[in-house]
């Protein structure tokens, strides 16, 4: 494998090698660095950002880097991570969904109301979950139909959704004020912890599966005579993942344990990453985002892809709504309001998903949400007001988009647009 040899000074000036099989780790690193300089930043800015955030807050408050606060952080980030994963789908299309905040609110309120013991008919956790997910899918499909079949810009449809679903939350709550969630399953969703041994087993199984998958691919590619990344790089990837996962489990187990919601997040992360990278549907989403015309000419139903993405987005917002309601153990007229919407959209953008469509990953939502939740959490520990939090988070968002835009220019000037 060789790149198109971008005209970067200090880059691989020598003629690019076409073989690729015998590429060493240092060649790979040099090529990666050339890519970074040409604007292929990947997750680099965000990891640097996270480190800076951790250093700054730890220097201000000793409680930031403690096991207890780390567990809190995961639970706090869970809802915006989930909603952000859904946002990735609409951002990949180059669209936007402004309604996710209150769609999550609707989902939370519906969850609370369906499981309320003083109802004439109380739903069990399973059916409630199914109904709420279907409500999410239905709302998203409705948005998608308006956007594709009638041709209203997604900004307008979901702006109306922002107002409309807020209204639905108010109507559903009525004069109750606050509804306490009384179903054990839904309370435990964001408040229970995995048994410590179970976490270790799951972590090790997960790492083993990841390593197995990478090396299976490596063997298959070699068998078919196709070039692959150097073995050392595969080992490095497995090592990085293993260290990260084991560290998370270890730190959490110092405190209350790994939150149950972490398992949900991991499941969603793996599932949607698989969908985006390994299925025809996922490939078609990228194609529609990159060039809707190319996709249409390739026989892809652009409308169906868009509707599906909005449906997924709203469904993920519904799951986020359940997590949010569970964490607070109640829903009220303000459910899904406040900073939820903006944090959820900011998360994938900070994580490196492009607002212009065609570029983005599920991982970006996770990393971005981690940054936002860290700042929110850290500023909270410092006892700063909501106003300060918003201003600083806004600054980080602007910084992230600036980095993206500059990287875009870099890509354009080196022909990687």
């Amino acid at each position, binding site marked *: *494998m*060789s*790149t*198109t040899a*971008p005209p970067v000074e200090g880059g691989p000036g020598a003629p*690019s090698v*076409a073989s*690729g099989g015998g590429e060493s780790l240092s060649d790979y690193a040099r090529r990666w660095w050339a890519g970074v300089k040409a604007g292929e930043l990947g997750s680099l800015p965000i990891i640097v950002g996270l480190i800076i955030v951790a250093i700054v807050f730890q220097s201000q408050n000793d409680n930031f880097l403690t096991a207890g606060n780390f567990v809190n952080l995961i639970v706090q980030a869970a809802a915006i991570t989930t909603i952000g994963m859904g946002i990735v789908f609409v951002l990949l299309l180059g669209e936007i969904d402004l309604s996710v905040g209150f769609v999550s609110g609707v989902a939370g309120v519906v969850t609370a109301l369906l499981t309320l013991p003083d109802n004439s008919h109380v739903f069990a956790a399973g059916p409630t979950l199914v109904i709420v997910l279907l409500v999410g899918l239905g709302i998203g499909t409705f948005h998608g139909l308006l956007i594709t079949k009638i041709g209203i810009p997604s900004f307008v449809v979901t702006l109306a959704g922002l107002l409309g679903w807020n209204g639905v939350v108010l109507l559903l709550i009525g004069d109750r004020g606050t509804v306490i969630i009384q179903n054990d399953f839904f309370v435990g969703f964001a408040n229970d912890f995995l048994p410590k041994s179970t976490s270790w087993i799951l972590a090790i199984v997960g790492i083993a599966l990841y390593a197995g998958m990478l090396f299976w691919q490596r063997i*298959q*590619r070699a068998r*078919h*005579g*196709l070039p692959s990344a150097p073995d050392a790089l595969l080992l490095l990837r497995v090592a990085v993942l293993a260290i990260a996962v084991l560290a998370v489990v270890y730190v959490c187990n110092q405190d209350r344990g790994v939150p149950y919601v972490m398992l949900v997040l991991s499941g969603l992360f793996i599932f949607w990453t*698989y969908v985006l990278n*390994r*299925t*025809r549907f996922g*490939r*078609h989403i*990228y*194609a529609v*985002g*990159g*060039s809707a*015309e*190319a*996709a*249409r*000419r*390739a*026989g*892809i139903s652009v409308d169906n892809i868009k509707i599906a993405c909005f449906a997924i987005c709203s469904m993920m917002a519904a799951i986020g709504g359940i997590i949010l309601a569970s964490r607070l153990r109640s829903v009220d007229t303000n459910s899904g309001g406040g900073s939820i919407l903006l944090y959820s959209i900011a998360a994938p953008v900070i994580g490196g998903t492009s607002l212009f469509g*065609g*570029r983005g990953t599920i991982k970006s939502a996770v990393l971005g949400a981690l940054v936002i939740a860290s700042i929110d959490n850290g500023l909270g520990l410092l006892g700063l007001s909501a106003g300060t939090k918003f201003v600083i988070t806004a600054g980080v968002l602007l910084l992230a988009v600036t980095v993206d835009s500059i990287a875009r220019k870099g*890509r354009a000037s080196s*022909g*990687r*647009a």
Partner: protein
Amino acid sequence: MTDTPMLELRGVSKSFGAVQALYEVDFHVSAGEVMALVGDNGAGKSTLIKCIAGIYSIDSGEILFEGQPVSIHGPKDAARLGIEIVYQDLALADNLDVVQNMFLGREEVTRPLRSLDELTMEKRANNTLEQLSVTTISSVRQVVAGLSGGQRQSVAVAKAVMWNSKVVILDEPTAALGVAQTRQVLDLVKRLGQQGLAVVLISHNLHDIFEVADSITVLRLGQNVAEYKRTEVTQTQVVEAITAGKLSKIPGVQDEVIA
């Protein structure tokens, strides 16, 4: 060249409101033949290929494929028959790599999970590029945005011929290319004809056409005005046909043409 044309259009008409874009156009191309389709701007070349592609439905007339009348209602119908079109703007997604673009909409999947079969796709993409002697693309895993115009055109052509297609229609394949890249693409067009495909080449560049085409069909204001064998015609005659070819029907809406 066989007696039955691979693709034949008989008396095809198409109008958009009051504008008659095509008027009883006849057109045919045989296996192994490179047929050039020429005409000035607005002559109806693009409309004609969009009718063949099924993007527009025809108002009247018929389309025959291997002698059989067919109806084409969309890009998928055309693809099923073995008609592939390489559009002027290439229709490649910049954010996808070469393999992903070549298989767009027709990805191979593996059995149990219906997950993408990247291995098969990468191998087939490599083979196709090799068959077409495209040597300018060093890695099929690079993103299309980073390719030159000639490389992109090669990818688009390779994408078109990979599907055992029988008819390949190229819309202005050399329009935006430099000298060396034009050379690459013209060689590629010749090879397609030699491999037994029916090739339709749309171009404004008569020099290119006289280099690779076997026959030339001239459209003017939506009508056929001439059809030549390349060996029996000069560039001047073709230019005359393009600009002043005899029309069978004077379009009523375009008075300035008569004057």
